Structure formats: structure tokens, C-alpha cells
């Protein structure tokens, strides 16, 4: 066995420019997370995962997420089989308070309107020559929910999981940069000043019954959304039931943390330059950006449409929260709203379309899966 073969084994020998570029991207993710505080809980694990994934591979040693028998491959199992996303939804459900949504149900429709981004991007992807399955997985980026995007692409377009996941999380992190310009474009100063009356009190019993009924409705309409929404509403029932607090607590802490760490680092590690830097990926990033723009616009415009019929007007800004990316887009609404009127608190109202958007894109994912999963 030759020493020279050692140097052949050291990463330097194989380091491709692509890997160097990806490592740079990983460092940027970590930088944005730490210094700009963009979705740090996601970007730090993904960013470090990108570093791990782009250490040039060694032939014959199982190291990467795609090498059968490697540790990363075992941990990646939860991504490739779509196991992590429902578990994350379980934790999210256990920490979500649906009361603002329950107190003002008409705002829920804004969460539906934003899903136009999903379907327009789906069609755009078809035009660019992606297969229907791939197009569906790319379209769901517009849902602005990382777990939903990972779940659907693991089911119908696993070959694109890496770029789709990275695109989804990147744009979710960039919501404070992407959305404001669109919000200014589609709303007048007068509209941005609209105040909404404080939401009514929601009884404990309404909160307890909601997740049960909402689950049945969604699962009946789109069984494909059952995996994600089942866990989301189950987690919420654990939270609201008042008798399972310790379970809700573990679900929204240790469970979701551990799954987030494993999902983030393995998704990051799945971006080996060799497979990641392709024209397809570039298309996916362009389409992803488009989908966020369309989704945001859809929410804003639908809010203005609703105002044509509503007696007490809603502030169209909250339409932008329909893309979900909980709770960042709701914060952006709050921030933009306060710029014109510092005493106007839109955050609570924006949370309604925000969580509705999560449900909406899960339903959309279910529809895409049941339609495209077959053939």
C-alpha cells in the first residue's frame, strides 16, 4: 500500500471547484444565520451540513449521505423516506396557537389564495421541461414550508430533493428581504394604515375540538395531506387537551429539536457539488423565487378582493402572511404595517392567514401527491 495513495485519499487531492463553491455557500448560510439572524435554527444545521457534504468523497469509503452504509446515509433515511417532516409538524402543532384563526375565520381564505404560487410554479416547471412529478415537487416550494416541500419531493421526485429543500429553506429565510417590495407594490399607503379590531376570545373547548374536526375535513378532502396534517393537528390536540401537557412539551422541545438537527445537517450534506450544481438546480432556484413572489402577490390581491365585499375592511398587508413561513412573514407584515403607523399591531391578525397557509400548502401537497404519485 503506497503512501502516495494517502495523499490521493486526502481531500485536497479531489477538491473540485464545485465543492469549494458549495463550501462557500455553506459558510454564507451560517453567516446569515448568526449575523443576520435569518431562520438560524435551520440555516446553521443546513450550512454546516453543506460543509460536510462537500468534503470531496473518497472512493470506497462510505461517508456521504448517498453512500449505502454510511452514518449520514442512515440519518438521511428520515429525509429520503419522508419520516422527519411529519415529526416536525407534530412539534409545530404542539407549539401553534390557532386562536387568532378561530377568532376570525374569514382570514383563513388568505392562506388558500397564497397557494396560487404552488400551482403557477407547477405549470412553469412543466413548461421548462420538468416531468409532472418534478414540477409538482418544485411547485410546492411556493408553499413556503420546508417540511412539506421535503415530504412531497421525497414521495414523487426524490432525485430533486436536495435542491428543492435548499431552495425552500433559503427563500423562507429570505422572506424579510423578498416580501416587503411586493407588499409596497400592491398596497396603497391608505390600505397599509387600515386597523383591524382585536380578535374575540376563543373558548378552551373550541380550541380542543378544532384540531379534531379540521383534521377530518382536510384528510377526507385530500387524503395525501394526512401524514403531515395528522401530525400537525395531533400535536395541537396534545397542546390544547390540557391533560397531555408533558407529551406536548416533549414534542415541541426535545423531539422537534433532535429531528431538526438531523434533518438540517443531512439535507445540507445532500448538496454535493457533483450532484447539486446542475442546470436543473438553477431552474429550481429561479422557479422557487418566482413562486414566493406569486404566492405573496396572490395573498395581497385576494385580500383587496375581499375588501370589495366586506363591510369592515381587512388590512391587505396580512394577505402576504398567507404564504406561511411561520412566523417570519407575519413579522414582516407587522414591521411594514408599523412603518406607516407605529401604533398599528397587525401581528396577531397576520397569524391567522399564516397558519392557514401551512394547512393550505399541506392540502396542495396532498392533491399533487395523489394526482402525480400514481403514474
Amino acid at each position: 500500500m503506497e503512501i502516495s495513495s494517502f495523499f490521493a485519499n486526502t481531500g485536497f487531492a479531489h477538491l473540485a471547484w464545485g465543492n469549494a463553491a458549495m463550501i462557500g455557500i455553506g459558510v454564507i448560510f451560517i453567516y446569515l444565520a448568526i449575523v443576520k439572524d435569518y431562520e438560524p435554527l435551520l440555516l446553521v444545521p443546513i450550512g454546516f451540513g453543506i460543509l460536510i457534504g462537500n468534503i470531496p468523497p473518497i472512493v470506497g469509503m462510505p461517508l456521504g449521505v448517498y453512500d449505502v452504509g454510511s452514518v449520514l446515509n442512515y440519518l438521511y433515511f428520515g429525509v429520503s423516506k419522508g419520516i422527519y417532516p411529519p415529526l416536525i409538524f407534530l412539534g409545530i402543532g404542539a407549539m401553534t396557537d390557532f386562536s387568532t384563526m378561530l377568532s376570525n375565520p374569514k382570514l383563513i381564505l388568505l392562506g388558500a389564495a397564497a397557494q396560487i404560487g404552488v400551482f403557477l410554479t407547477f405549470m412553469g416547471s412543466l413548461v421548462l421541461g420538468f416531468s409532472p412529478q418534478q414540477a409538482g415537487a418544485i411547485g410546492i416550494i411556493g408553499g413556503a414550508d420546508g417540511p412539506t416541500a421535503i415530504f412531497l419531493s421525497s414521495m414523487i421526485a426524490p432525485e430533486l430533493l436536495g435542491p428543492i429543500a435548499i431552495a425552500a429553506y433559503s427563500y423562507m429565510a429570505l422572506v424579510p428581504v423578498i416580501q416587503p417590495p411586493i407588499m409596497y407594490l400592491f398596497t396603497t399607503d391608505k390600505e397599509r394604515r387600515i386597523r383591524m379590531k382585536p380578535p374575540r376570545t376563543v373558548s378552551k373547548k373550541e380550541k380542543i375540538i378544532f384540531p379534531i374536526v379540521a383534521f377530518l375535513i382536510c384528510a377526507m378532502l385530500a387524503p395525501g395531506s394526512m401524514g403531515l396534517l395528522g401530525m400537525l393537528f395531533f400535536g395541537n390536540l396534545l397542546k390544547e387537551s390540557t391533560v397531555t401537557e408533558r407529551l406536548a412539551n416533549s414534542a415541541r422541545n426535545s423531539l422537534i429539536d433532535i429531528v431538526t438537527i438531523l434533518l438540517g445537517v443531512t439535507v445540507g450534506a445532500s448538496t454535493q457539488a457533483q450532484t447539486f450544481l446542475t442546470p436543473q438546480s438553477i431552474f429550481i432556484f429561479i422557479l422557487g423565487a418566482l413562486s414566493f413572489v406569486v404566492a405573496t402577490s396572490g395573498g395581497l390581491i385576494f385580500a383587496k378582493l375581499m375588501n370589495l365585499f366586506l363591510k369592515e375592511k381587512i388590512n391587505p398587508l396580512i394577505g402576504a402572511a398567507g404564504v406561511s413561513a411561520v412566523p417570519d412573514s407575519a413579522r414582516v407584515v407587522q414591521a411594514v404595517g408599523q412603518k406607516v403607523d407605529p401604533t398599528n399591531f397587525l401581528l396577531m391578525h397576520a397569524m391567522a392567514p399564516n397558519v392557514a397557509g401551512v394547512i393550505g400548502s399541506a392540502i396542495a401537497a396532498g392533491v399533487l401527491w395523489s394526482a402525480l404519485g400514481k403514474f
Partner: protein
Amino acid sequence: MDLSPFANISVSHLVTPEFNAIYFSLFGMGLVFSGLLVISLYILALPKLLKLPGWWRSRRRPETPGAEEEVVAGANRDDEVLLAIATAFYLHQDFPEEQEKITFKGHGDLDSAWKISGRVRGLSMRNPSAMRRKIGGK
């Protein structure tokens, strides 16, 4: 497709014999809307439903449970309190030096932590004021 990514771009992909993407997308949006619409209608209806007398009775029961239940529930409520005192006393004799700690442990273990959370909740639910809250704030 990797070699010539732009070669394959065409609007014709939207409508193929076996799959009409435009038609499907409209349907998909429709389903998303109808799903969330049904949910919001249900939410609008719920408070009224909860007002129905029948519901009241069924939900009221816990406040005035049946005989058998009463025994158990009632007894449980008492023993939680009395047991704490009894335990504290009995332990005091044995480990005077580390009273609090052990008292807590002793109780926590006898009436296992695994169940205590549920139990405490249960008591608060049987407690009228908590119950009132549970039924709807006022």
C-alpha cells in the same frame, strides 16, 4: 436534459393527452379553497353549536359526577391533600435532615410523575372555576 436544458422548453407540456395541467391546477386550487372554506364555515358554526342545551348537559356532568365517580374523584381530591400531610409527617420522623427534598421525592414517586401531570390537570378540571374557564371564559 442536463446537456441542453433550454432545448426542452415548451408550453405544449401543459396540455398532454394523459394530463391537462391547467385543468388540474384549477381543480387543485379549488380543492385547497374548498378545504379551507369548509374549515372556516365550521369555525363560524361551532360557537352556535356549543350553545345547544344538549351539549351543555353532557359537558356539565363532570362538575356534578355520578355516585360511583364521585367516590373516586372526590376521594382522590382529598387524598392528594391528606396524603401530602401524612407523607410529610411520616418522612419527617425518618429523615429529619432532608425533609423538603425527600418529601417531594416521596410524593413524586408514590404518585408517579408519569401520571401526576394528568392527575393534577384532572383535579383542576373538577375544580369549578377551572371548569368554568374550560367551558368558555365567562
